[in-house]
């Protein structure tokens, strides 16, 4: 575990929502910081209490987490509009173009609260932290489930759109070559269909905005390429974080498939909130049990029966959870797994300390 944190430059935590992903990401970052690495944890969607525990405000600029003991830990949370604005400030060739982007209705609509824009913003933000942060390790917490995986597609999606041939065709510039001829086939129909679908005004706005993007294209392509490459760099580690119950594991299977499709290898898993293992005591002979206590009331019998039923049920749930998680790891060839039991959490920094203490991957 510590070995992984010592050699990685980027750790990406992926998993369904509600599994404690943000806490695990923060705990991993804390461990790395304790081990002497200058670490930054980037959270995409933290609950306010965790954010305040980490001492991060609403800015997406990392701030230092006040630790009791030694270590340098930084934390930030994504602010999508601010990330977009910062990017445009940096890459716009002049103030006039920058202002045209900022005032464009497409930018105003898109930079706000849409999931796909969040995905773009998160990648851009990660890029910035890498370019200027000087951290030994960055731990990235991702939005839950499919939105989280979509984040990894964001650079490629942008690149596909910013492909000069595609952009050129959309803007009615160029259109030569094989690609141009292919797009021209059925292109007029598709273009008219898109116009009819979205309405003439919005369609004109979109094309106008694409014209602005064309100017920014080289800088965006360079950044997108850099982020795609960063995700595939040798020192990037993907860590699955999940609970062990069936619905969560179902979701995780889908996420793992999506990562595999994108050739993003997963070597580690953290099973969080694992129910405690309980031995199944077998069925209860209620009459015999009552007799052994010298009791005979039906109410007491009901309590004894309820107690055994609850214990057996818990044993069954715990056994099933462990088997399912172990099976998942085996079938996906995940070598390093850590088991974190159910903790009574407070949502504060002390939770992270405890989780960090428990995160010890089998097999290093």
């Amino acid at each position, binding site marked *: 575990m510590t070995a992984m944190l010592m050699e990685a430059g980027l750790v990406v935590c992926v998993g369904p*929502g*509600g*599994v404690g992903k943000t806490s695990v990401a923060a705990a991993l970052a804390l461990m790395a910081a304790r081990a002497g690495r200058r670490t930054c944890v980037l959270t995409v969607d933290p*609950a*306010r*209490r*965790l954010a305040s525990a980490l001492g991060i405000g609403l800015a997406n600029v990392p701030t230092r987490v006040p630790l009791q003991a030694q270590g340098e830990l930084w934390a930030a949370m994504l602010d999508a509009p601010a990330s977009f604005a910062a990017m445009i400030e940096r890459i716009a060739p002049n103030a006039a173009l920058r202002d045209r982007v900022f005032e464009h*209705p497409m930018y105003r*609509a*898109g930079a706000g609260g*849409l*999931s*796909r824009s969040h995905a773009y913003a998160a990648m851009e933000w990660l890029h910035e932290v890498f370019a200027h942060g000087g951290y030994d390790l960055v731990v990235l917490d991702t*939005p*839950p*489930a*499919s*939105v989280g995986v979509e984040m990894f597609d964001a650079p490629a*999606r*942008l690149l*596909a*759109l910013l492909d000069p041939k*595609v952009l050129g065709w*959309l803007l009615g510039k160029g259109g030569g070559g094989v690609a141009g001829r292919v*797009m021209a086939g059925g*292109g007029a*129909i598709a*273009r008219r*269909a898109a116009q009819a*679908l*979205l*309405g003439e*005004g*919005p369609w004109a*706005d*979109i094309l106008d905005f694409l014209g602005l993007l064309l100017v920014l294209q080289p800088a965006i392509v360079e950044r997108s390429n850099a982020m795609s490459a960063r995700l595939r760099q040798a020192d990037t580690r993907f860590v699955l974080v999940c609970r062990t119950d*069936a*619905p*969560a594991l*179902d*979701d995780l299977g*889908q996420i793992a498939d999506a990562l595999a499709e994108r050739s993003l290898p997963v070597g580690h898993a953290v099973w969080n909130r694992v129910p405690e293992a309980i031995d199944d*005591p077998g069925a*209860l002979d209620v009459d015999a*049990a009552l007799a*052994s*206590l*010298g*009791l005979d009331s039906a*109410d007491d019998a*009901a*309590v*004894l029966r*309820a*107690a055994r039923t*609850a*214990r057996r049920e*818990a044993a069954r749930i715990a056994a099933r959870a462990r088997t399912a998680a172990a099976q998942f790891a085996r079938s996906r060839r995940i070598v390093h797994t850590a088991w974190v039991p159910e903790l009574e959490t*407070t*949502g504060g920094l002390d939770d992270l300390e405890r989780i960090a203490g428990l995160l010890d991957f089998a097999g290093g």
Partner: protein
Amino acid sequence: MAVSDGGPSRDRIRDRRERWPQRILVTGKGGVGKSTIAAALALVAARDGAQPLLMEAGARASLARIVGATPTDVPAPLFEGVYGVSLAGDAALVAFAADVLHSRRLARVLVGHRAIGTLMAAMPAVAEVAAMHVLDRRRDYAPVVVDLEATGHAQMWLELRDTLSPVMSRGGIADMLARMHDELADPGRTALVLVTRAEPLAVAETTELCESLQQPGSVRPRAIIVAGTTPTGPALADIARLRAVADARGAAAVRDDLDYLAREAQRAAHEREMAAPLHGTGVPVLWSPRVASEGRAALFAIGEPLAAALLDHDGVVTSTGGDR
């Protein structure tokens, strides 16, 4: 626990069919049992004689395990009288385009075209607009139970009209978004249900969502459902009394049982404490204990009390258990 034939009487069922709202939006963090609750409500609605459509906003495998089938991109029978439709991938976009352009073939050309298709895939709001359109068009089903993705995503849905107002202030899409916004904000037509767990972070997120939904014109949640809670068992005093007897008599196995039950009772009490901030939201809190059964029986066991709380008493939701 009441299963299919042990449930409410025929008269009550007939009476209740009319009470299901047009739409139920189910949201909350992933992994809290959202899909299970959506499926359970749809199943009870079908049993009540309504024609429910279960709409999956994301592509999640959990539904396949819960109901044994996966919804397709056009509404089709899913299980037990419940219809299902998926909004995942291009499905919603194709349905949206096909409706507006009056041609499924043209919709496919649009989505499949290298440049136009790429643009559609890259544009931020397209997926949400398409999903909203599908919801707008499915008026032949009621209730339409929408299994929304994570909380933040649900909020994007509910704020879509305002988010897109800079680019879409007029035209067919703007009209549709305005209409849907009004309908989703109308508690008589749409029930927004927030699913959470009795854990500090999940509870905090739910209360934060309730706060942010308090703006005028916004959607007021019909209920908060605390899912997968520890069932309430015998009183702690009775457990302690019997445990003392078992200990004195050396009945080790029975003592261990009672120890376990006492821990569960403590956990149940602790869950109530952790969920306490939910009561400050002013939204009714429904307690949904985990069930031991599986499959259809489990869905009925989960769905029946929730449906009763959501629909009975003339639509006025009362807390079940959470306040006692």
